């Protein structure tokens, strides 16, 4: 007979030769024992040589038991001495039967808690004497397993389900090796295997409880049996969807137990039933956000549903080993109230269905990589601006912000309301999250936080308060909707154009661009320094002064306050700064012309006239123009009586990094060194022109003395060798340069071209480009917000790695597939869950009245930390029970009030008369079984009652001697 048919690879073909239960086993075993090999009967010998299938399995199990050295009785465990961190260790043997393979697993505690065997021996000697008198209390007839099941230590054990269901600590389990092929599926198969197990236990005198796992994985049942010289135990499970309501409460279960055990002893002699009870209550989060962050109503409903189940919190109330007279629970009455339990535990699960930050970043990345991304202007067309619009920067900004913040309130829940408002306090490191500001680490003594902030300091993004960041945040609100993105973008770009065309500096000006200085220590300020900085103010900062002093010496003051875009920021910010440069440059040029047009015009025309004369006769008579200051005591090389002047010069063309790149590529495309030099002579030429205009009668030596002092020998008054190379670039340029003050020169910086270029790129942007521009800013903001929201948690969870990944992603220029961003996103997702988990828990327990109470705050902080740690601890997926975080003192703990309120009103997280969502019981009864003259035997029933999941497991013991 094969267990394994070809069609159905289960044990369905088994037809057990015997149908055994209860007493017939004994008879059968006796029969086996009686058959001796030396029997004379020839017929019997023949019969005996035919090995039945049962015998095959029996001997295989016996071999396994023998192999693990488990024959005979087992030492007693002192379950009360179990250490906190005990675990079950497991050894296994493979048992093959026909074509099926089973595993026999031996579980035992890893702790050294075996009772001294000496005591036991002494007691055994006295056994005969004592047994008559103290039968009721003397438990010497108890096997090791009987001791275990009568102890409440393993109530609702979290380590192993069998420990919890049957109260056993050391046991054997037989199960199919392959969960489907070797599954014991039918009752017949189970009975057959159980028979074999019982025979094997009896043959080997093994006293360990032996369980057989039957049924499908979703409905596993452990049937079991244990035998000692004095006791037989049987372990029976039931697992039902529906159960009679009578058996869903303590009273009913006690009834069930008494019915099942059917003790013959008189009621007077019987002990009370004792019960351990474990109720789980669902804790409801207070102030569940009613609003979602999205405006769409459909989405709102969906999101609300999503977040409702994000945090599952449970209060566990335990009552341990109480006599039946003290606890009452039936269908209509219960005295098991959370307030009366002294043992409270809290557990939590957090499965966010929606992670807004990660979602936004993921969507933005997807937009970036969309090759067929549409043009923003084609998605949305604004009505043409009315020409009479008087542009007022401040009003316009407000208007723009209003227009853009359709979902302002919703969004403020996500990124903090401050994103949209000005920050006056420059000392704040980052915007604080209103509801969790208590958690915000206020000092940077924490090296982890310092590391986070240090990593973010090198990020290539935009200043957190800048208009660029605000726009990015605004666009991210509508990242799911390309048309909405286009609307915000186009309206923003239109505003930019208005400012450019009306010569108005960009909204916010110094204020917006300048406020970010707060987060940068002074030594880094130049790096992040916005170009808008007031030059006088900038001089007060030591570094800036250094940076500016280079310019000072070069003497370029004409466009002095229009510096270059800061190349340390992201390209979008650079472009906007560049636009501001353009507007400023044009304003300044206009101011320059208005103030000096007459003077300069005169000088200019004079110069032109004189130029002709100079060519003909004497350059010295030309009227000097564009002088800034005297150059020390220096005088003209040819005319020691004429002082040298430093001219006003044009400043080098400000460049964004893509312009730098383009220029570098242009230079490197030129094959000859002379071409490359020629391509860069512009600045030199204009300097020479300005110098000539300021110093009539000067020559190259004078110019070099000012421009490249190292090439001028003060002692000999001669130029260096390299400047005297025949027809070198400097000399040639000097020959060709005409005197022309900077103000009249062709400007290097053609602000109109640059500004139009930027605006045109913006106006023709695709959604992918927009997403690409705001990407670094959104990652930056997310990292800031996550640190900010629940700083400590993120920081302690090595948030620095997230920060450095984000920072690196923004600086990694060569990544068409955005791998670095995806890598950063991977981490952000993890930290976002953590941050929100923490935030949910915090909101649940935190109350305004704890504001000034440091002790309470510490307790809550620790509790939240413990709950999160427990929740994220790996555990077996099928574990029946979880150890929660103990709330010492239960209802009398100050948090008990928060959870339970006064148990009268509605203030608590648990409602009055809230029904537990899960109830578990363990009942103990020591009663003489099977007859009145039997010694007392431990009986145990475990029950787990929850919605559509009812499990009752009984461990019953019978006296095998006094029956």
């Amino acid at each position, binding site marked *: 007979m094969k267990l394994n048919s070809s069609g159905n690879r289960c044990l369905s073909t088994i037809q057990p030769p015997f149908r055994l239960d209860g007493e017939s086993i004994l008879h059968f075993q006796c029969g086996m024992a009686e058959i001796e090999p030396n029997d004379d009967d020839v017929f019997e010998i023949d019969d005996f040589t035919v090995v039945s299938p049962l015998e095959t399995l029996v001997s295989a199990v016996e071999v396994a038991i023998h192999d693990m050295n488990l024959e005979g009785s087992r030492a007693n465990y002192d379950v009360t001495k179990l250490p906190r961190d005990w675990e079950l260790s497991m050894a296994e043997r493979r048992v093959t039967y026909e074509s099926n393979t089973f595993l026999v697993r031996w579980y035992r505690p890893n702790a050294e808690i075996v009772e001294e065997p000496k005591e036991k021996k002494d007691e055994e000697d006295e056994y005969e004497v004592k047994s008559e008198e103290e039968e009721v209390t003397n438990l010497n007839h108890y096997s090791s397993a009987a001791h275990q099941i009568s102890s409440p230590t393993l109530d609702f054990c979290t380590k192993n389900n069998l420990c919890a269901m049957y109260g056993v600590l050391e046991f054997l389990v037989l199960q199919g090796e392959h969960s489907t092929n070797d599954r014991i599926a039918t009752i017949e198969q189970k009975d057959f295997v159980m028979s074999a197990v019982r025979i094997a236990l009896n043959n080997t005198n093994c006293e360990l409880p032996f369980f057989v796992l039957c049924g499908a994985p979703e409905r596993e049942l452990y049937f079991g049996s244990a035998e000692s010289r004095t006791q037989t135990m049987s372990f029976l499970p039931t697992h039902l969807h529906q159960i009679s309501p009578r058996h869903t409460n303590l009273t009913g279960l006690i009834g069930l137990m008494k019915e099942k055990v059917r003790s013959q002893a008189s009621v007077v002699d019987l002990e009370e039933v004792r019960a351990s009870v474990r109720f789980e209550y669902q804790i409801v989060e207070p102030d569940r956000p009613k609003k979602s962050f999205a405006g769409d109503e459909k989405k709102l409903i969906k999101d609300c549903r999503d977040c409702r189940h994000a945090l599952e919190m449970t209060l566990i109330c335990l009552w341990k080993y109480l006599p039946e007279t003290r606890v009452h629970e039936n269908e209509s009455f219960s005295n098991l109230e959370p307030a009366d339990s002294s043992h409270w535990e809290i557990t939590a699960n957090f499965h966010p269905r929606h992670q807004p930050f990660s979602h936004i970043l993921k969507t933005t990345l997807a937009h970036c990589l969309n090759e067929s991304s549409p043009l923003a202007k084609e998605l949305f067309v604004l009505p043409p601006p009315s020409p009479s619009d008087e542009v007022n920067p401040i009003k316009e900004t407000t208007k723009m912000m209003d227009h853009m913040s359709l979902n302002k309130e919703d969004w403020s829940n996500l990124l903090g309301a401050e994103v949209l408002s000005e920050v006056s306090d420059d000392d704040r490191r980052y915007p604080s999250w209103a509801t969790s500001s208590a958690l915000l680490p206020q000092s940077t003594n924490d090296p982890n936080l310092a590391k986070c902030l240090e990593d973010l300091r090198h990020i290539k993004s935009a200043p957190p308060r800048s208009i660029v960041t605000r726009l990015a945040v605004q666009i991210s609100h509508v990242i799911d909707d390309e048309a909405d993105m286009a609307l915000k973008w186009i309206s923003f770009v239109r505003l930019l154009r208005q400012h450019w065309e009306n010569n108005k500096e960009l909204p916010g000006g110094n204020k917006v661009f300048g406020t970010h200085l707060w987060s940068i220590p002074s030594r880094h300020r130049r790096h992040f320094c916005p170009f808008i900085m007031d030059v006088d103010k900038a001089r007060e900062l030591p570094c800036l002064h250094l*940076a500016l002093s280079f310019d000072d010496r070069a003497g370029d003051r004409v466009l002095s306050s229009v510096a270059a875009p800061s*190349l340390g920021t992201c390209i979008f910010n650079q472009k906007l700064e560049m636009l501001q440069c353009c507007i400023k440059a044009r304003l300044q040029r206009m101011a320059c012309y208005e103030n000096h047009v007459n003077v300069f015009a005169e000088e200019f025309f004079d110069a032109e006239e004189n130029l002709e004369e100079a060519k003909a006769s004497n350059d010295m008579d030309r009227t000097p123009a564009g002088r800034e200051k005297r150059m020390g005591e220096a005088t003209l090389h040819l005319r020691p009586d004429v002082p040298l002047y430093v001219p006003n010069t044009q400043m080098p063309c400000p460049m964004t990094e893509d312009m730098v790149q383009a220029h570098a590529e242009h230079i*490197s495309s030129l094959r000859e060194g002379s071409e490359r*030099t020629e391509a*860069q*002579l512009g*600045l030199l030429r204009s300097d020479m022109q300005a110098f000539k205009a300021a110093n009539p009668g000067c020559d190259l030596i004078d110019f070099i003395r000012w421009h490249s002092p190292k*090439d001028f020998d003060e002692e000999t008054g001669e130029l260096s060798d*390299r400047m005297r190379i025949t027809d070198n670039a400097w000399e040639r340029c000097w020959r060709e340069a005409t005197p022309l003050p900077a103000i009249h020169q062709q400007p290097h910086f053609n602000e109109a071209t640059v500004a139009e270029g930027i605006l045109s790129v913006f106006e023709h942007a695709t959604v992918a480009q927009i997403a690409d521009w705001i990407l670094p800013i959104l990652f930056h903001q997310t990292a800031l917000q996550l640190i900010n929201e629940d700083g400590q948690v993120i920081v302690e969870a090595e948030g620095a790695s997230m920060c450095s990944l984000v920072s690196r992603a923004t600086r990694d220029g060569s990544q068409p597939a955005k791998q670095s961003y995806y890598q950063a996103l991977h981490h952000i997702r993890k930290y976002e869950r953590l941050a929100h988990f923490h935030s949910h828990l915090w909101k649940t327990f935190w109350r305004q009245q704890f504001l000034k109470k440091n002790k309470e705050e510490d307790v809550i902080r620790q509790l939240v930390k413990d709950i999160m740690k427990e929740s994220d601890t790996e555990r077996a997926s099928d574990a029946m029970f979880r150890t929660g975080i103990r709330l010492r003192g239960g209802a009398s703990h100050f948090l008990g009030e928060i959870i339970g309120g006064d148990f009268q009103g509605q203030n608590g997280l648990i409602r009055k008369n809230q029904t537990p969502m899960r109830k578990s019981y363990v009942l103990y009864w020591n009663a003489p079984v099977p007859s009145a003259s039997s010694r007392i035997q431990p009986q145990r029933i475990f029950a787990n009652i929850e919605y559509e999941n009812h499990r009752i497991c009984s461990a019953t013991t019978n006296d095998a001697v006094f029956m």
Partner: protein
Amino acid sequence: SDMAVQSATAGGQPSGDQNFDYMFKLLIIGNSSVGKTSFLFRYCDDSFTSAFVSTVGIDFKVKTVFKGDKRVKLQIWDTAGQERYRTITTAYYRGAMGFILMYDITNEESFNSVQDWCTQIKTYSWENAQVVLVGNKCDMDAERVVSCDRGRQLADQLSLEFFETSAKENINVKAVFEKLVEIICNKMAESLDKQDPNQGVKGTKLDANTTQKPPSQQCNC
């Protein structure tokens, strides 16, 4: 050293040919007339002229070297030292993986500016950029004003590698570039090690089996 010269292309189109495994962008910076251009020509062309025309803006040369079995293309940018060009040249700092910060041992002022240049690098370059401090013109010992010890002290203080060189006598020129390439490779290997292997980040370590130069070779004075 197993680093060998493969080709020495002067000028050329750096982005044109793909005949390399890695490209490092290097920058030579320092005060005016400390010998940056001569140094670059000595390395790339093995030539020396007493006078190169003062560099206007920026210029570059390309050289491919072997590091282990990998071809490393060096795009070396030469910069104008004059103050006037400083805002222009600093724009090119970004993206440079290595810097040769040069002073002239016969010129005190150029040595005194080293600190300023270093600040400029920190401010404008990528944070991982590697820097070698070079005291050039060490053949002109008679006119020396900055001793080798002062140079080394300053390098230690700024945590930089240090060499004294002569472009004219071809002393340590190659060693400077080899050292710079080596420390860049080490830094790359380090950051690859730091990355989580599960994240699937692509990148290969360069073999860092280049033999170390004996210390005596680092300074010929």
